C-alpha cells in the first residue's frame, strides 16, 4: 500500500469516527469540536486526491469561519449542564433506528456502486489558477447566482438587525 493510500484511509477513518461522534454527543460544544475535526479530515482527503485549493478553502471557510460562528452561537446560548439534560430527553436511542436504516440502504448502494469501478487515487492536481479560470469562465453564472444569494442574506440580516437597533434606541 502506498503512503498516499494509507494517509487517505487514515483521514477517512478519522473523518467517519469524528462525524459519528459529532452526531451522538449530548454536549453541543463537544459535538462542534468533532465536527471541526471531521472537516479538517475531509480537507486532508481533498488534498490527497489532488485538490489543494479545495482543501485550503475547506479549512479557511468551513473550519475557520462557519464553525466559529456555530461555536459563537453556542456561546451566546450558554446552555451548560441544563442543555445536556435536555438533549438526553430529546435524543432517545430509539430515535436512531429509522435514520440508521435509511443510512444503511445508502451505504449498501454506495458499496455496490464503488465495487464496480476501479478509480485510482491521486489523479491530476488542480492548481488554484485552473479553478479560478473555470469559475469565472464556464461557471460564471453559478458564481453570480451564489453571490446574489449572499447579497440577499446580507440585506436580510441588516434588515432584522436594524429593526432591533431602532427599537432599542426608542427604549433608552
Amino acid at each position, binding site marked *: 500500500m502506498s503512503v498516499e493510500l494509507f494517509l487517505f484511509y487514515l483521514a477517512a477513518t478519522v473523518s467517519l469516527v469524528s462525524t459519528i461522534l459529532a452526531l451522538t454527543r449530548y*454536549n453541543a*460544544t*463537544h459535538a462542534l*469540536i468533532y465536527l*471541526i475535526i471531521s472537516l479538517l479530515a475531509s480537507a486532508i482527503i481533498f488534498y490527497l486526491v489532488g485538490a*489543494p*485549493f479545495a*482543501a*485550503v*478553502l475547506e*479549512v*479557511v471557510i468551513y*473550519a*475557520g*469561519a462557519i464553525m*466559529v*460562528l456555530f*461555536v*459563537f452561537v*453556542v*456561546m*451566546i446560548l*450558554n446552555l*451548560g449542564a441544563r442543555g445536556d439534560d435536555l438533549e438526553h430527553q430529546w435524543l432517545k436511542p430509539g430515535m436512531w433506528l429509522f435514520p440508521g436504516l435509511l443510512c444503511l440502504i445508502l451505504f449498501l448502494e454506495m458499496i455496490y456502486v464503488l465495487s464496480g469501478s476501479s478509480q485510482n487515487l491521486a489523479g491530476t492536481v488542480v*492548481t*488554484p*489558477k485552473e479553478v479560478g479560470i473555470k469559475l469565472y469562465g464556464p461557471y460564471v453564472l453559478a458564481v453570480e447566482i451564489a453571490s446574489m444569494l449572499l447579497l440577499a442574506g446580507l440585506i436580510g440580516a441588516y434588515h432584522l438587525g436594524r429593526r432591533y437597533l431602532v427599537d432599542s434606541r426608542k427604549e433608552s
Partner: protein
Amino acid sequence: MDEIFIYLIIFGTLFGAILYAVVLVWFERRLLGLWQDRFGPNRVGPFGIGLAFADMIKLIAKEDWVPPFSDKFIFIFAPTAVMIAMLMGFAVVPYAPGIYVVDLNIALLFFLGMTSLAVYSVLLGGLASRNKYALLGGLRSAAQMVSYEVFMGLSLMGVVMLSGSFSLVDIVNAQKDLWFVVSQFLGFFVFLIAGIAEIHRLPFDLPEAEHELVAGFHTEYSGMKFSMFMLGEYLGVILISSMIVTIFFGGWLGPDFLPPIFWFGIKTFIFICFFVLLRGAIPRPRYDQLMSLGWKVMLPLTLINLMVTGGVVLWWGQA
C-alpha cells in the same frame, strides 16, 4: 533537496520559533521599559535575558490546575490549538532561497487557514472556563477575529494579482524590482491592522482587556496552559511579522553584502519591534469602535484597492 536538510529546517523552525517567542516575552518588557524611560527587567543574567528562562521554569514548575467547574476536555484542548496552528503557519514561510519547509502553490491560503484555526483557542478557552469574564472575552474575540479575517484575506489578493501566484516563494521573487509595499500600500496597511487584530495584540486586545474583563479568555488559566496562550500570542507576532516581510517587504531580498537569511531576520526583527512600540504608544479603542472601523473603513478600503489593482493589471495586460 536533501532529506536530512529538510528535517534540519523543520527542527530549526520549531525550535527557533519557540525559543524566539520565549525570549520575546523578556524582550518586549525590556524594550517597553527603555522606551518609557525606565530600565525594565535587567537583573537576571546579561541585560536581564535570564528572566525569560526564569519565567519559563516558574511556569513549568507551577501546579497544573483545572478548575472543577470547567469543561475539562475542552479546557485542556484549547491552549494547544493556538500553538499548533501558529507553528503550522511557519511551515510555509520562506526564510531564504531553498530554506523553507514546503513551497506550496497555495501557501498564502494555508497561512490564512492556520491563523483562522487559531481563533478556536481563544473561543474554546473562554467557553470551557464557565466564567462570565472569560465568556465575554471569548465572544469578543470571535466577533473580532471573524470580521478582521475577511479583509485580511482580501488585502492580500492585490499581491496575488500582481505576482500571479499564491506561492510565497514566487511572491518574493516577483518583488525583485520593486517591493509590494510601494505598489500595494493600501493592502499593506490593511494587512498590518488586520494582523494585529488577528493575533489580538494591543491596541486590539479587547478579548483580554484587563481593565474591564479581568484577563478575558484566560482568566481561569494558570501554569503551563496559561503560558501556552502567551507563547501562542508571541508566535503569532513573529508569524505576522515574517508574513508582512515576505509579502510586502521583499522577504530575503536585499543588497549582497549580507546573506539572504540575515535580511529576512533583520526585517522581521524591525516589525517585531514595531509591534512592541504599538503596544507602548497607542491606547485601546472601544469595542464597538473596533468593529465599525473594521467593517466601515477597512473593508471598503480593501475593495477599492482590489478594484484599482485589478483594473491596472488588466490595463497593462500583466500576469
